[in-house]
């Protein structure tokens, strides 16, 4: 077969990688015949996790020294933000006449925020009495980038109980059972809601095309090509617009506001363009601010959006909400390892659920392709650094092949391009045709498994403060399965929106204060925290160091 040659590359790969690709091609027919390696036993899983998963390295995390979850282990990069001083000085903020008063304030602009807004409205809050505020644009979020699918136990021989068992086993039995029960019971309900909103799930002859995900025992993964997250996000966002719920973009929240009695009273926002602060007084506040991927824990690249900097966790923590499972980070097994231009971007698990398997430099398969994500990721790291059977890229990164041509070999020519259109386009922009050649992958920082503590209604320990989506913990325990984050933001976005609406109708907000910030600052000082450390981060900084070193602040 002919390969386009550009810049010394054949079909996007340098010659030395082609030698390994030839081995992958040579073993493909036999691998297709033999099937993938068997799934690991519980003991084998434990062994590879302990030895190779980044979460299991004790020196990469520490116990928090302040706040309601004092003693909670978390990665240093995250702890640095929890143990940090506010970016604002409460003394200069005038809270006496709020700029905006609303019934339900929703912090965030992604999936959970949008679902919460729609269900708060369904629950009787007029659209104009709901306000969504977001750091970037409405829909610039992780929800929009989810590719592979959403789980829901909606047909025989599946049931919510089987889904429950898969979730708990995948999460190493550390999940909050009440939250998992809500997740699995509401699965079909949310798919039904999407259908009524006009989302387009993949169907064949009027039936869903349902597949496995890593760690599932039933085929319950619903997809919309490999644009599942985007399809759901754009439909839900379109409905938010139809209903007329106001959204203010580029105004992140920097602190929560509490009344004298410690109940949620709104939030302090920051206009990223005019640099003004904005005081919002609200009867109920919903935290839907997502996760922490942009903290690049242990130096990993990330699949996450530009604003995934843990702001909501920090604000809630200062307001008195505990966090759980923060020591657990999801590294997606297959991030892009080559080309370097798109390093760390997501190679969806759907590639594996459609038949592609991980293969080493010798063309050997070495792991069951659909282990739970932490196990699969650890096995790939072991193959590269333990067995020394990875492929090293020109920029020095190791990876393994994901044998994508197997997809068309199994399901017929044209399957990959139709079911995985986004993946095909991503690599083709760099001269690689993944229907012909395998793709090089390595784990990438993908998801915050833990988060703020909620109950099954999305309530936090602070009255009037609700949370849902990636910012909240407990649903997935120490490891989330594929397809349960889209489901999570729908289920708990909805529950948080409903609970917030009920609260907002019954409780008028009282005068907002920032007293909890003063108290938290005192704790930081007592703990001897370095005053230069500030949070929330709002946005990461990727400017080159040489530029930052020469930067003058002249315009005031």
């Amino acid at each position, binding site marked *: 077969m002919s390969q386009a040659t550009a810049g010394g590359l054949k079909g996007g790969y340098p010659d030395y990688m082609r030698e390994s690709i030839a081995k992958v091609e040579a073993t493909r027919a036999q691998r297709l015949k033999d099937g993938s390696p068997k799934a690991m036993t519980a003991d084998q899983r434990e062994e590879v996790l302990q030895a190779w998963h980044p979460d299991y390295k004790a020196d990469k995390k520490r116990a928090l020294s302040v706040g309601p979850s004092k003693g909670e282990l978390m990665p240093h990069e995250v702890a640095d933000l929890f143990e940090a001083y506010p970016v604002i000085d409460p003394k200069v903020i005038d809270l006496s006449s709020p700029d905006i008063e609303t019934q339900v304030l929703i912090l965030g602009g992604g999936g959970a925020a949008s679902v919460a807004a729609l269900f708060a409205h369904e629950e009787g809050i007029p659209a104009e009495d709901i306000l969504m505020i977001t750091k970037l644009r409405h829909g610039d979020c992780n929800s929009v980038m989810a590719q592979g699918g959403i789980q829901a136990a909606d047909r025989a021989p599946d049931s919510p109980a089987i889904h429950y068992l898969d979730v708990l086993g995948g999460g190493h039995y550390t999940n909050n059972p009440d939250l998992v029960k809500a997740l699995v019971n509401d699965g079909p*309900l949310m798919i039904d809601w999407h259908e009524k909103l006009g989302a387009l799930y993949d169907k064949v002859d009027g039936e869903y095309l349902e597949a496995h995900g890593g760690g599932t025992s039933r085929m319950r993964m619903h997809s919309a090509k490999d644009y599942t997250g985007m399809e759901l996000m754009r439909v839900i966002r379109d409905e938010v617009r139809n209903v007329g719920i106001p959204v203010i973009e580029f105004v992140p929240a920097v602190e929560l506001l509490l009344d004298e009695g410690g109940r949620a009273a709104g939030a302090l926002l920051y206009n990223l363009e005019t640099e003004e602060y904005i005081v919002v007084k609200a009867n109920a506040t919903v935290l839907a601010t997502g996760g922490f991927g942009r903290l690049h824990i242990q130096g990993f690249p990330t699949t996450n959006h530009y604003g995934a900097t843990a702001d909501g966790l920090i604000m809630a923590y200062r307001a008195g909400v505990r966090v759980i499972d923060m020591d657990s980070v999801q590294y997606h097994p297959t991030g892009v390892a080559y080309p370097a231009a798109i390093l760390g971007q997501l190679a969806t698990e759907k590639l594996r659920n459609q038949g592609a398997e991980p293969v080493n430099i010798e063309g050997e398969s070495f792991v069951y392709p659909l282990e739970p994500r932490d196990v699969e990721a650890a096995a790939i790291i072991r193959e590269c650094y333990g067995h020394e059977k990875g492929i090293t890229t020109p920029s020095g990164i190791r990876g393994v092949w994901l044998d994508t041509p197997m997809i068309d070999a199994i399901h017929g020519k044209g399957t990959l391009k139709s079911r995985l259109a986004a993946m095909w386009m991503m690599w083709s922009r760099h001269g690689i045709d993944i229907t012909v050649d395998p793709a090089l992958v390595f784990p990438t920082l993908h998801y915050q498994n833990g988060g703020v503590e909620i109950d099954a209604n999305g309530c936090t320990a602070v009255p009037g403060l609700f949370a849902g989506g990636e910012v909240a913990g407990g649903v997935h325990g120490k490891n989330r399965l594929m397809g349960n984050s889209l489901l999570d933001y729908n289920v708990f976005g909805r529950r948080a929106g409903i609970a917030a609406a009920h609260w907002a109708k019954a409780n008028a907000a009282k005068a907002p204060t920032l007293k909890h910030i003063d108290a938290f600052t005192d704790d930081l000082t007592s703990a001897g925290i370095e005053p230069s450390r500030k949070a929330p981060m709002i946005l990461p900084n990727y400017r080159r160091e040489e530029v930052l070193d020469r930067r003058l602040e002249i315009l005031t």
Partner: protein
Amino acid sequence: MTEEKLTQIFVMGKAYDVPAGITIMDAMEYAGYRFVRGAGCRSGFCGACGTVYRKDGDYRLEFALACQEMVEEGMHLTQIPFTPAPRSDYQLNELDAAENVLLQHYPAIARCVSCNTCTKACPQDIEVMDYVQAALRGDLKRVAELSFDCIQCGLCAMRCPADIKHYHLSQMARRLYSVTESPEPAHLTARMAELGDGAYDAELDEMMSMTLDQLKQRYAERVIEKEGEAL
């Protein structure tokens, strides 16, 4: 590690030397820009980073997503902040697909001069003009299929001489197509009713009352469903 090869680009008229082989977005950050607008998911799905550029010696305006496209020598770049376009509000369940509702809500499509500028502007390689033509015919299925990969970056609407709001139009078309021509499978409707009757409560309650060892046992004994095979 290979020696870093630099390439010259122009950002809003100023020259910068940046590493070859990185994306426009990474190159601008390398040059010293900090994005507030113009960066979102950074993976090609959110449409925040629509970018236009010209190359030396080429009269054409090119379009790309800054997070996906690699820099090339002599690129003259300008990021276009996302520009909201007016959209038509609707009640999905009150739309009559038999009428040409797309034309009613977006009458500008009748002004399409088939110049194909929208298609050329699309960073997702969508046949935008073709779906506008399909919309004029009221062919919802065709609009839905052709427009499916749309990330709503809005570059089509920015370029259109007839001021068509393609990405809002196709959003409405896909939703309407879904509820009219791609109905919910019967098994989901049935499962909803069963859940309403509490048909699965006992099984779940039993699972929730198990000890950790019992749960682990049950997990280890799971039978994995295989495609096309009954359990």
